[in-house]
């Protein structure tokens, strides 16, 4: 018990909170960007653009990314992008990797979400004089997004958890900071894992709660 009290000294907690902040910061940016990317790619894939076989090519790239481990994509962005002249640091490399990976996962959710809407809706809106874009953004997409909320949010929860993988390229996030603390004082091993498990749980659980709250609100 005494170990726990010592381990949770203000200095250690502050250090962990700094890590937690990086986790949240990287997660929020990645969630925002990957949502935009996912929406865009999902639409392209759904629209089945025949010109230059765009949809087919985009679809294949999405499938490739979806079927690779995130860890590998993190390595590619950290070690590979600089070879193309884009110098990355752990923060940008992690964000780019997360946006690529989660963007592809979200694109698939968006595609199946739009597909689940009755095609009659689109036809109805078009026959009322709307353009494809208007019908998509004012009629089909809002309904589709509503259906997608649970899947989207659980993907966002995954994203938050996945930031922990970036310890491998020394992103100074929560798990990495905990590892620094317990590697300097190994008696803190258990207290550290207890508290970071709780911290991750709180962040992710809050996201899950938001999901069910949003869903209920939309239903009314």
């Amino acid at each position: 018990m005494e170990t726990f009290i010592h381990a949770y000294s203000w200095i250690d907690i502050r250090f962990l909170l700094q890590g937690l902040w990086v986790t949240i910061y990287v997660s929020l940016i990645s969630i925002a960007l990957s949502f935009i990317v996912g929406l865009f790619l999902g639409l392209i894939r759904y629209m089945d653009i025949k010109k230059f076989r765009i949809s087919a090519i985009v679809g294949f790239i999405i499938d490739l990314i979806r079927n690779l481990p995130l860890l590998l994509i993190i390595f590619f962005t950290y070690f590979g992008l600089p070879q193309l002249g884009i110098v990355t640091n752990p923060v940008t490399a992690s964000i780019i990797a997360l946006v690529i990976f989660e963007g592809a996962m979200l694109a698939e959710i968006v595609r199946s979400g739009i597909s689940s809407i009755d095609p009659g809706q689109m036809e109805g809106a078009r026959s009322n004089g709307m353009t494809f874009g208007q019908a998509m953004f004012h009629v089909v997409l809002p309904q589709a997004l509503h259906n997608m909320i649970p899947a989207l949010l659980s993907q966002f929860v995954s994203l938050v958890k996945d930031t922990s993988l970036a310890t491998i390229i020394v992103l100074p996030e929560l798990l990495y900071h905990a590892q620094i603390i317990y590697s300097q004082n190994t008696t803190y091993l258990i207290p550290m894992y207890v508290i970071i498990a709780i911290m991750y749980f709180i962040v992710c659980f809050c996201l899950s709660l938001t999901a069910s709250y949003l869903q209920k609100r939309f239903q009314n």
Partner: protein
Amino acid sequence: MWQIITNNWSAFLMGFWNTILCSIIALFFSLILGVIFALLEVAPPKFGRVIARIYVEIFRNIPLLVIVMIFYLIVPRFIVKLSGFQAGTIGLTLYTSAFIAETVKSGINSIGEGQMEGARSNGMTYIQAMRYVILPQAMKIVIPPLGNQFVNLIKNSSVLAFVAGFDLMYQAQIIAFATLKTIDTYVVVGLFYLILTMPLSYYMRYLEKKFAN
């Protein structure tokens, strides 16, 4: 790039084999655990429901890497010695089982109350009705989403690299260091992963379409 493959063939193969082995073991046990917790969650007793809920929420909201680290660094000190491969596989099993429990639960819920009532009024017990009427239908519905969980499981098995589990990703890191051809090595490893995951996810998409009609 070809040289990397030929020079390190046995290392790649060992990693490939360990990734497959870990995935299959984890899939088997997480299916069993997942179905058990799903059944607990839909069954009438409140106690079981609470337990299942807590289990699912814990393992869904904590990063896999943290779970695996706990099994690798803490459990061996107090309970039982676990190698990196074992700790990784156990962590992966528990983590995936929570997702499978959620999937199976929603499958069971989608079957509808009427079926259960019908089976019960024909003299079946709750367990019989679940076993012979509800579960077989539910499992059929959830096969595509379960397949996606399996793809995720294979990808997630790369956390074994953190605990010296000798999986594909671990071998990749070692080879990348030894040859200092970082990108080429990771491209090769990416191909190995795609060999496992690509056919599976295309098959699942095919099944999804088939069931939808």
